[in-house]
């Protein structure tokens, strides 16, 4: 710069400073979103991790107790009842919530008379609030409800039981409510996946005389493998961690903890019994479990995608 001439070094310095300033300017535009996320989602997660190591009732100052909450959880009987219910729900729910919509999507994709109409009808339950679905199912399966009345009409009086009174019968019904309210969305996702399969594959398969069943298992399902994985992961997340509204409206988790799952226990401990430390400990377990389960699913589904 001495003789009024810019050296290349100076150029680079000015340019890099300019780039840096430009980068900061761009970054600053994303700050509002980040603030929202960090304040209302990031901080609560961190808070849960720390509070899970404390004894805290919301009024008295928190007291550091280390892993005691976790030990308490893993040695208590009710925790395992509740966790068992979670597993029960997963085992019942994953096949139902995955294969029912897949089957419907396959039929719809073949082309059926009034197919568009069916698509809209199947989507209908998914816009209705899960709370409404829960109340509807509770009334349907109540002792004097329509399902029992239907059994009377057919003459199967023996089936007339109080469906939601015990965990063994109420959990399948909670899963049923979840499947009813969600299968339309999953069907739509499968259909969207199928619409990306190139049509000439089907044509050449047809020329080779491939039957319906082989076409489904050897072309359609392998071709939408990553969509299938997505649906299974979403189902796991829903079944494991978003069943609260169903349970709250249908059984209230009872009797006892018979139809509770982890998140319902979290709600009871944290909001009703004010055992905030323990509730946060369950929150952490829930969070970790969801993470691990979705990882596990990814692992199981890995490398079978024919497109890769």
């Amino acid at each position, binding site marked *: 710069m001495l003789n009024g001439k810019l050296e290349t070094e100076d150029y680079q310095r000015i340019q890099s400073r300019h780039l840096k300033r430009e980068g900061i300017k761009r970054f600053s535009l994303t700050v509002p979103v980040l603030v929202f*996320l960090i304040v209302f989602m990031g901080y609560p*997660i961190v808070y849960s991790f720390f509070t899970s190591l404390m004894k805290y009732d919301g009024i008295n100052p928190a007291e550091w107790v280390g892993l005691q909450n976790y030990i308490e959880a893993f040695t208590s009987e009710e925790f395992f009842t509740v966790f068992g219910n979670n597993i029960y729900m997963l085992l019942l729910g994953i096949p139902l919530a995955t294969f029912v919509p897949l089957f419907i999507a396959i039929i719809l994709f073949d082309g059926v008379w009034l197919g568009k109409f069916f698509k809209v009808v199947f989507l209908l339950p998914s816009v209705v609030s899960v*709370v409404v679905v829960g109340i509807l199912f509770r009334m349907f399966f109540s002792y004097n409800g329509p399902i029992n009345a239907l059994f009377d009409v057919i003459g199967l009086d023996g089936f007339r039981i109080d469906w939601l009174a015990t965990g063994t019968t109420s959990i399948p019904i909670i899963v049923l409510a979840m499947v009813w309210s969600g299968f339309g969305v999953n069907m739509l996702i499968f259909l969207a996946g199928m619409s990306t399969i190139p049509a000439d594959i089907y044509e050449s398969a047809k020329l080779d005389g491939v039957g319906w069943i082989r076409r489904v298992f050897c072309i359609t399902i392998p071709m939408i493998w990553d969509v299938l994985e997505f649906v299974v992961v979403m189902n796991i997340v829903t079944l494991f961690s978003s069943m609260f509204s169903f349970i709250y409206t249908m059984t209230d988790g009872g009797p006892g903890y018979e139809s509770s799952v982890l998140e319902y226990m979290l709600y009871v401990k944290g909001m009703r019994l004010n055992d905030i430390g323990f509730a946060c400990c369950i929150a952490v377990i*829930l969070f970790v479990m969801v993470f691990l389960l979705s990882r596990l699913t990814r692992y199981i589904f890995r490398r079978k995608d024919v497109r890769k």
Partner: protein
Amino acid sequence: MRLKEKISGTIKFLLLSCIAIITIFPLYFTVVSAFKEENEYFINMFGLPNAWSIENFVHFFEQYSVFSMLKNSIVVSLVPLVVMILLSSLTGFVFAKYPFRGSERLLNFIIAFMMVPPMVLLIPVFLMMAKMGLVNNTISLILFYTAFYMPFSVYLMTANFKNIPDECIESAKLDGAGMLRIYWSIGIPLCKPTIMTLFTLSFLWCWNEFLYSMMLLQRPDVRTLTVGVATVIGKNQTDMPLLYAGLLVNIVPVLILFIVCQKYLQKGLTAGAVKG
């Protein structure tokens, strides 16, 4: 061969019809029960009502402060939406068209929040709102909804802006428009379909959301309709037809949205699952 196709077509049609009946039946039952009298509900359970009486609805509106609940529901469904669309479209625009160092990683960080189960956040969020004195104030719910549905809307907006050709942006740049100017005059008009999709989806989510609206808005005068239907009416009401009328009032707005915004809804629900 033709005959075989016809038979299989008929079987498929019948199968789907059965499933459709199972799907529709609870909704049909809600509608017919809402128009029945209390005694008729138990005598004539499945048939159409003898006389379509709107008495249940009159009772429902008289006994509960439905209009106030409706108003609250609309406020907590629409306000987060506006904030969300403004912020997420700007962020998505920056991520898609003006990347900076680490922006890819930042986007992944934001999207990762989509997998957080709502229950995990409940207690910290509730305590935080209590500390700020916002419990029983609609602002608390508005803030939380905005944050909770933000990752999805940032994801949708980024994908949307990535589809806009770079030439549009370049030519505007040559004309001397700044980043914000390009965002406002080119970006926003081009993402109207995405805004509609987001509008439909997040309205449905906020309208139907239950856990947080129950916890954060407990006083009767700030209660939302979904919570009102579930807790006050759903738990204590023994008059079945009245309960069905309440459910129906909660369903009708989303049904209208469902019918009007069918196209956007289908697009939004499959977003994220299928690439390209």
